[in-house]
């Protein structure tokens, strides 16, 4: 297995922490653990009727999922301290197992952000031809961009090692964004196809609408499990849709999800894959348990955040400073809405 990226993560992480001159960190007042999915589509979507009924297909298949989390654990006067962690979960023989990578902690400043990002990106794209053309992100985008690098690497490794299985991704199969250049995703999808696996991407939230209503909120009268295909979706350049979009309602209840399936996979195989998923994974509220576990296992708890701050203080000499939250200071009880918005 190619381990250049994780090794580079460790090196860059340690280097960013060690080289830091500013050793005072302000405790974080807002966090984001999951990257937001960017859906850049023209809104001319319509359902492809009738819905496709699904029947559980009894065939032993490994289901695997990847998810990453990132969190800003503090601010320094020159930048931010961020943590990234990724998890792969797979279900085989009715047992779930996981591999968790991280957390990696980075001290990102305006001065080192380019160096850090390029160094990590270089580890991912060993070929100079595959270089990401979007340049280094802003300081605020760094957490999600670094997490995305780790996530895509984990997805690629999974696609390269799983035979005739189901690879579950969190989000959509939209490429061409700064986070997900087209060849990133293409590599993952083709690696999976070459080993007989199918990539299914589940989005927890979507902005896609049909007749003004969110596609996942529409009242479907069909009996689950079923899929409804979507037509008329056109991505806004430079984004590209590498999958076909469906609304998937895989279990009884109120929840339907946007599901992207690799466009290069033939229709029958797509349906078989979902039908095998029905048998080989638990689908609580219509969402695959493997993917849910991947999310749960990589998410940072408050306890872990304190521990990482403790690590930064003890191992790398950072000093915690709790500056007043200006929202609270200025707006008192009315600050809450503003923070959440």
């Amino acid at each position, binding site marked *: 297995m190619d381990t250049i990226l*994780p090794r580079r*993560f*460790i090196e860059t*992480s*340690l280097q960013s922490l060690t080289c830091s001159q500013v050793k005072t960190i302000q405790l974080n007042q807002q966090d984001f653990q999951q990257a937001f999915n960017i859906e850049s589509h023209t809104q001319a979507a319509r359902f492809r009727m009738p819905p496709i009924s699904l029947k559980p297909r009894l065939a032993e298949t490994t289901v695997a999922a990847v998810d990453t989390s990132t969190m800003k654990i503090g601010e320094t006067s020159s930048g931010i301290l961020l943590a990234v962690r990724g998890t792969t*979960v797979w279900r085989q023989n009715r*047992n*779930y*197992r*996981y*591999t*968790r*990578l*991280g*957390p*990696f*902690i980075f001290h990102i400043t305006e001065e080192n952000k380019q160096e850090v990002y390029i160094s990590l990106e270089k580890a991912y794209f060993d070929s100079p031809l595959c270089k990401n053309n979007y340049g280094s992100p802003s300081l605020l985008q760094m957490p999600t961009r670094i997490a995305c690098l780790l996530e895509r690497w984990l997805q690629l490794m999974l696609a390269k090692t799983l035979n005739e299985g189901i690879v579950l991704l969190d989000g959509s199969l939209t490429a061409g964004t700064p986070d997900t250049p087209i060849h990133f995703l293409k590599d993952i999808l083709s690696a999976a196809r070459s080993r007989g696996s199918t990539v299914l991407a589940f989005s927890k939230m979507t902005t896609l609408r049909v007749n003004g209503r969110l596609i996942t909120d529409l009242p479907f009268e069909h009996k689950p499990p079923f899929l409804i295909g979507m037509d008329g979706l056109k991505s806004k350049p430079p984004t590209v849709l590498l999958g076909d979009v469906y609304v998937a309602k895989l279990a009884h209840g109120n929840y339907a999800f946007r599901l992207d399936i690799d466009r290069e996979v033939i229709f029958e195989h797509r349906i078989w894959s979902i039908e095998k998923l029905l048998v080989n994974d638990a689908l609580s509220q219509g969402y695959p*348990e493997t993917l*849910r*576990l991947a999310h*749960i*296992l990589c*998410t940072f*708890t*408050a*306890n*872990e*955040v*304190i*521990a*990482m701050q*403790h*690590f930064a203080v*003890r191992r790398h000499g950072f000093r915690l400073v709790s500056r007043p939250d200006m929202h609270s200071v200025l707006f008192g009880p009315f600050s809450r809405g503003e923070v959440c918005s």
Partner: protein
Amino acid sequence: MKLYKKEGNILQVLSFPNESAEKGDYLLVEDSEAGKALIVQVIDVQFASVPGVLEELLRSLPDGGEVVQGEDFDPLEIAPHITYIQDASLLVCKIRATVENDNLSPSSPWLPSRSQSAIKKLSVPTLLKLARVDGKLPIVLGGTKDASLLTIDASALDGGLNIISGKKGTGKSHLSKLLMLNLVGYKATVVVFDLNGEYLSLGMTGDGKRNGYYDKVHVLAPGQNFKVALKQLNLHVVLGILVHALHLPGTSAREFRRVWKSLQEKDMLTLHNLGEAIRDWNCNQHVRDALASRFYALVNSGFFTDNVAEAAALEDCIFKAKEHGGAVVVNLRNTGAIDRQIVVEYVLGKLVELLTAWKLKAAFLFAEEAHLYLRETYWDDIVTRMRHLGIFTTFVTNQPDTIKENIYRQADNIFLFNFTNEHDLDVVSRAARVDVETVKSIARDLAPHYCLVLGRVVRDFPMVAKVKALDVKTMGETRLFFGEAA
């Protein structure tokens, strides 16, 4: 350790896994800028309320109760930091005193700085030194957790009322023997009501040889080497026995007084003559019957004799003990309930008589399970009148609710062994010198032979010690049917 919260006289301290502190430990919260420090005692150890711990625990069990197996690649080694935070504990402490310029004051009207205060463990020897728990008559009670000795001063037992309480088999009698022998060592006069014959062999070592206390422990067995002649008795002692132990009604008691005085005037006070006089006394038949039944109870006890030669035991023993220190052990093991009360009435009456006449300066009384032989009115008598006369009692019991509340309220020292029963702990915590939280929290977790010492002997700094072993022949162990093989 970090100061977290103060509510009333409860202080909460955040402690990390490498800073071990347990229930009963003392901490010094030092505010160097204020020039003062608080002495606090840990009364409970809880998990610190670390945010995210619940999520942490929940995510390890998402698969229908089965732990999800997996591998963690943690290159920066954050996991030990997570454990470190997760295992942080909250020490709930009771404020015991304020130290200012090496002087202790029991109050704590000030608040130490949360950010600047340094918190460290306070060793028992340092605390004892600060609290000036020392003296010329040391009694080593045992070892504390930090491998130092807990030494109290015998004079702190002087003039006091003590209670030793705890569950069965936790070591109450052992401590009672330790205190008793040390008092004897300091030439004190000790009287023991030995209900189970546990104190009979205190003069022997574990392997059956004579020890230093051999000549100082005087065992009196009622009806055997402990008998009383009527001539030696004062009327009020006899009346005490008749009224309190044998429940003689007031009218009959008045008639008995006349019979007694009549015989006393004629110098004819013998059992035989007393029986004859009651039989021939000119009085109401019911009164005569009442007197006669009590007379036969006295005779049947075997405790009374007409032979003066065999009847001077108690006084002799007490006077011997008075000279060089000694213990008079009244063996009540083979004595029936009524006879036991007769004997106790007599001994207490005799002690009061000797103390009143200043023939005896003071005596330490050890009473095991006193509710089995002490009459109702004696409880108050012991903590008031008898105490002023010089009888300093130590009650030993495994049933704390058998001791009246006012005894607890006036107890100077309490030696508490393990109790798990909430009701028992409630009863004990009524003592004026203890606080409910300390008793309930610490006593519940005491291991066998560990004792929570409260009161004057430790200058009101509750301390836990493992009572030291005694090289004396143990008696009074519970007889077992299956023995050790079971």
